[in-house]
């Protein structure tokens, strides 16, 4: 009820601020066609690293969060989208372009690179990020409880649990003395993940083969090389570029009969072996809630960074059978979802 109350009060506050903003822009004789159409609605600038199609499920979660905070796109909030379509290098330029459209709020969704690009644009507007990895370590925020500045958001534990994926692979293939990991060298979290993975490999007593892939074309050679390297299984580091290409990775893993694990459930759903990582539905939904709260007038510095602590294990028994491996009963009973 408390929530609903805020909701009822919020649009008016938003409208007033919007009016003031409009007056200011009018005084500066700064006219854009984008503004003429819906002058009373706050505008969210949404920066995404991929295409809207790949982002469909994430966008739905984001909209659900917005709705919980009392905002519905087209009714009381407008959203301007900016998609990098997989070209992560374009993110800083797109962020600058989005900010120039004078949006009221920037949502940087889908990874640390997006958050860093939005922050680098130097906008004075609030930025809400949705990412994996440690936002303090990446220099996005000052601390979790007091983010500081105009940026806050939601972080999943996907990056932190990379060693856990190695452990799971090792458990499935206890006989394999060598396992391969794939990292995206362009990812800001790649180094820290590899470091953790190496120390985990040492603990587990396996050899680690590090492979790099930053383009979709490189995927096939990476997967095919696993068998050539005599590595038992393939562990993907947490990276949005990989996550959004789960289907392709699943197809390749099946094609080369490579046991593989990624961060997102999309992978086992598409025929991959298993996944272990944060629940992106939760993180995107919470980003939507935070965006709504900022639109209602809350200061980003008052909103602590939220960690989505839920990590889920999804396994595909069919694939395991196809690959000739068997999950231990402990793993099966501990899995959040089992695909048979």
């Amino acid at each position, binding site marked *: *009820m408390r929530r609903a109350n805020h909701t009822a009060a919020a649009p008016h506050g938003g409208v007033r601020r919007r009016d003031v903003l409009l007056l200011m822009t009018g005084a500066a004789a700064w006219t854009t066609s984008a503004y003429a159409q819906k002058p009373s609605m706050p505008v969210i600038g949404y920066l995404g690293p991929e295409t809207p199609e790949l982002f469909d499920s994430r966008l739905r979660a984001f909209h659900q969060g917005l709705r919980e905070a009392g905002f519905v796109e087209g009714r009381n909030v407008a959203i301007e989208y900016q998609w990098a379509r997989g070209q992560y290098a374009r993110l800083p330029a797109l962020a600058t372009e989005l900010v120039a459209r004078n949006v009221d709020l920037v949502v940087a969704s889908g990874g640390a690179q997006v958050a860093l690009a939005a922050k680098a644009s130097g906008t004075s507007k609030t930025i809400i990020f949705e990412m994996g990895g440690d936002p303090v370590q990446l220099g996005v925020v000052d601390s979790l409880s007091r983010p500081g500045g105009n940026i806050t958001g939601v972080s999943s534990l996907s990056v932190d649990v990379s060693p856990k994926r190695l452990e799971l692979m090792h458990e499935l293939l206890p006989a394999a003395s060598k396992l391969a990991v794939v990292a995206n060298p362009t990812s800001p979290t790649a180094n820290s993940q590899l470091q953790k993975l190496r120390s985990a490999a040492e603990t587990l007593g396996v050899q680690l083969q590090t492979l790099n892939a930053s383009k979709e074309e490189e995927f096939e050679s990476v997967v095919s090389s696993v068998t050539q390297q005599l590595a038992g299984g393939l562990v993907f580091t947490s990276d949005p570029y990989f996550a959004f290409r789960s289907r392709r990775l699943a197809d390749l893993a099946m094609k080369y009969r490579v046991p593989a694990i990624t961060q997102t459930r999309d992978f086992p759903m598409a025929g991959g072996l298993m996944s272990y990582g944060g629940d992106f539905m939760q993180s995107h939904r919470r980003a939507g809630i935070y965006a709504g709260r900022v639109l209602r007038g809350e200061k980003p510095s008052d909103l602590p960074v939220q*960690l989505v602590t839920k990590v889920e294990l999804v396994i595909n028994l069919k694939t395991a059978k196809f690959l000739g491996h068997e999950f231990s009963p402990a793993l099966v009973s501990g899995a959040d979802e089992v695909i048979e």
Partner: protein
Amino acid sequence: MIAQERFRGLFQKYLLALFMAVAIPLVINGAIEAWFGYRDQRARVDQLLGVQATAAAAEIHDFIYGITNQLGWLVQVSWTDEPDERRRTDALRLFRQAPAIVSLTLLDNNGLERLYVSRIGLNRIESRADWSTDRALVGARATQIWFSTVSYHRGSEPYLTVAIVGNRQAVGAVVAEVNLKLIWDVISSIKVGKTGIAFVLDQPGRLIAHPDISLVLRGAEEATSGPFRTIRDAIGPEGGFATSRDAQGRAVAASAAPVPGPDWTVVVEQPLSEAYAPIYAALSRTATLLLISTIFAGFLAYALAHRMTDPIKLLEEGTERIGAGSFDHRISIQTGDEFQRLANSFNRMAGELALAQQHQERIAKLKRFLAPQVADLVDRTGDDSVLDGRRTDVVVVFCDLRGFTAFSAGVAPEEVMSVLSEYYEALGRVIAQFEATLISFSGDGLMVLVNAPVPVEQPALRAVDLAIEMQKIVQGLIAGWRSRGYHVGFGIGLAEGPATVGRIGYEDRLDYTAIGSVVNLAARLCASAADREILIDAEVAASVRGKRLLDDLGGRQIKGFDEAIPVFGISFNAS
């Protein structure tokens, strides 16, 4: 003007008194009702919030109990020295069922770590690390279930460590790390009234659960937890409900209940405006009724005051008019109460006053012909019945000047009037002195009555003495006039006998007079008396014989009388 002001004062007093008589009991009644309503509502809020707090505490307890209950399944079987895969399966299954548990450590009967599973970090199997001196294990061994104080992971997420030992040493212990952020699901579903909420504080007063997760993630900060602790402290350890202010400064009603085990406090709060909404509604209802009743009381008092002061105003005006002499004015009040009676009294009084005035006027007229003493007597008694017509013995005295007509024709009118006024002034004094009744003037003559209307002792003697005195006085005057060359004389005639006396005339022209032959006789005697002569009839003579010197003048032929009448003279020089 003054009358008007006085009227207004009385009106105001009545208005005020009547208004107060109605309004004060109403206000007192309203105030008492409001006070009891307020107390009842407070009691209701106390009870309601108390129940809510207990229910919320039970839910939080269920959350914790659910976890400890699950953990209890991990300490059922005795440890052997062999690695136990089944326990790992149980632990991983528990992860799925209790999402708040972040990691689990299973210890054997010697306090050695046999299994560590985590959602984030790498698992450890058979590390055999020694936990026997760890306070979690020591605590659990002492109390079976041990709770740590809440710690904030990276200064943000609240974590709790729970340790449980089995019912015997052989089954070992389990230590679990619990992310308390997940209480949010429980706490956000607790509704207190319409907009009230519940939150949880740990023993030192730090926020560990609140519907707004962003506050919980800063629970380690004093600035965040301070306002919540203030509410908890306002309630105090005795419980019950208290009013305080939340972080936004809004007044809230709050109640608390303890969560046994981790020693937390669940506080439920509701905006005071909502908690007291029924009493506010009742108060405004009472106030409205009071206002309406007061206005009604005002109208009633106004009408009543008018009813009371209007007759008074009429009485006042009426008495003023009567006082000003309008004795025929009548005050018309038909209220059927004391006022009407009073008005009737006034009206009667006015009638009596009119009568009294008429009487006074009559008395004033009497004074013209009655001797002043007699007039005063009549005036004092207020009774003029002595003037009523009757038949009585009277002595009639006539006197006039001789030769006055000839004299008056020869001198100036002023001189005539001067002589007459000297003459009458002198006579008037004598008449008054002897308390005789002056009947009439006619030119130089006048008629005086003795023994009527007021009877006197020896009327004849008094009349004779009167006549002697008259002669003496007038002869004195005549001597003076002669020196001025005026030749007049003065004669008197007296007669005694029955006559009819009484008032004659009409309205304002009423005179007292005597009718009878005695009057004629006296007049005739006067007419026949020469200067310096006092003639009396036989009756008078008989009455004064021996007392005054009489001259028997023998029978005289008097005009109007068939036979000669015996006439006597009084010598006034002798006396």
